[in-house]
């Protein structure tokens, strides 16, 4: 189980870069990948899995574990390496990514991938899953948290707001939205395609506690996560992470060309060099 009190920011920063390098590596296996929307949430994933979540990789079905739902399922390519890194499965399995019969496709399948708490792909469903997980925890008297990573584009789906209403109604204080507010969806800027601002006020008006922080600044990310209240009742929690789509690779930052793309040849080598400089392998801190 993670020790929440002693955060090693250097390790978390390294793991965020690892998420990016693996995304680039696996995308080459597939011939295409969701680079930029995975890069935008790399620090959030790193902070969650390597520092904040109550998980036990040797017991993926532990009933009291915190749950994580990757509602923006196309960022699964960044989640698989984390799960492998933490020991849910052998990292070499990822070499089959997207090949015929692989357990690891572009969108996550809980029946195939050890450590996944739910499947996703069709946008707008994940928060409802989190609502159900939180309600189940209440029925069972468990105090785990349910974290749901939402893309800022997908909150245009009506089902999201059905779930937002129900979480407020049922006072699901242990349900947490992690909104990756990177500002871009496939067709362009979210505010041009379908505006969602003022998103902070919108969540708050439905009875949610809302924080808004820089999603690439790890102390801010950790600060927001550690500020979440304890207890299973009360206002549900939303953290809006302002992020940069494609963050970490200069040519991809806030570019509409890299929602799905394919790095090849020298471009691949250049980007990997940019990301890998100084990257260290992960070594879990010894148990306390």
């Amino acid at each position, binding site marked *: 189980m993670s020790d929440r009190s002693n955060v090693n920011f250097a390790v978390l920063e390294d793991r965020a870069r690892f998420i990016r390098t693996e995304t680039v590596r696996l995308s080459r296996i597939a011939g295409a990948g969701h680079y930029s929307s995975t890069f935008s949430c790399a620090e959030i994933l790193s902070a969650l899995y390597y520092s904040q979540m109550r998980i036990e990789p040797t017991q993926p079905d532990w009933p009291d574990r915190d749950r994580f739902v990757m509602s923006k399922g196309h960022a699964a390519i960044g989640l698989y390496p984390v799960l492998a890194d933490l020991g849910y499965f052998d990292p070499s399995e990822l070499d089959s990514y997207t090949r015929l019969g692989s357990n690891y496709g572009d969108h996550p399948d809980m029946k195939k991938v050890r450590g996944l708490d*739910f*499947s996703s792909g069709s946008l707008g469903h994940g928060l*409802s899953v989190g609502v159900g997980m939180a309600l189940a925890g209440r029925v069972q008297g468990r105090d785990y948290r349910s974290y749901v990573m939402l893309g800022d584009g997908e909150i245009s789906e009506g089902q999201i707001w059905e779930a937002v209403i129900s979480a407020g109604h049922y006072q699901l204080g242990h349900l947490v939205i992690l909104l990756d507010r990177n500002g871009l969806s496939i067709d362009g800027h979210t505010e041009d395609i379908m505006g969602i601002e003022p998103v902070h006020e919108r969540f708050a008006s439905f009875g949610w506690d809302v924080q808004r922080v820089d999603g690439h600044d790890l102390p801010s990310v950790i600060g927001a996560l550690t500020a979440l209240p304890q207890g299973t009742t009360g206002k549900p929690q939303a953290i809006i992470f302002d992020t940069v789509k494609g963050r970490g690779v200069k040519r991809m930052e806030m570019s509409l060309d890299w929602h799905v793309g394919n790095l090849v040849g020298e471009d691949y080598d250049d980007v990997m060099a940019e990301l890998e400089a100084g990257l260290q392998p992960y070594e879990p801190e010894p148990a306390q």
Partner: protein
Amino acid sequence: MTTDMQNEAEIFRGTTDGETTFKNRKSVSGTPAQGMPAFVLGEELARMAQDDPRIVVATADLASANRTNDFKAVHPDRFFDFGIAEKNMITAAAGMAACGMVPYVATFASFAAILGAEQIRTDCAYPRMPVRVVGTHSGMSMGFYGSSHHALEDLGMLRVMADLTVICAADANQLRAILRASVDHPGAMYIRLGRGRDPVVYDDVPDLKIGRAIRLREGTDLTMITTGSQVRACLDAAETLAADGLSVRVVDMHTISPLDADEIRAAAAETGAILTVEEHNITGGLGSAVAEVLIDLPRLPFRRHGVPDRYVEVGPPAALYSHYRLDAPGVTSVAREFLASAR
């Protein structure tokens, strides 16, 4: 329209005070109440949940109409009303199932199956979550409420989904059997119910195995393969036809998916013809499913009987069943025509 039809049409919903409309009535339109079994959905689930802490129940602002308030009264901590938000309800049930619960979520069939189709497929069937989506008031049992409230496409839409069991209850006792069989059944289920006033088919809770049809009547001249609300009409039609000297087998094909192909093959081999009868669009439902089995067999006379491939008229349910020849006299006449043309 007769007065009886109007009276019957008006009475389908429960009251909001936790009392059951039908249970407390001695008769409806002159018919004894025991001949019009109200839903036993909430009552049976409440009983099952006494011994099974995994069972939770949800609805979408229809607790009195579908009798899930009978569950709420006994297990309020395991009952969730999601309001008019069916998609959220179905997906949240999948989330609960992922945490070890066995959720039963109930609403009108049109909203459960048609509005919630993607949630049933993507969040329940595909990850093989043990969610039981209960569609009540199916077919055209909502009568004059109109096409938005009719569910005449649900079987066709849902039976094509892999890893989803689709099953229809003919009456209250069969519903009890289905619910009991469902608890530990693997994967997701869609359970299709009528409006809770279905005529009695089973005097007691029947032995029921999901995926295995029930042969209710033997016969050699014709097999009626039917399901749900039409089982009683077919049995009554078979009785009438027997007086004509026709031997009619009646098969309750309660499970639409996975279909009991063996029972269909037996009917094809042992009886002269097959007629399917269903309260569903003639396209895509039970008749189409049976046809998919028959296409691989030697040809025999076969006909599908159901609702034509168009949106139906409004009207009191009894009038609609008569109009579309889905009451016993209607089924009888369809069978006679079919057999005459097949000779």
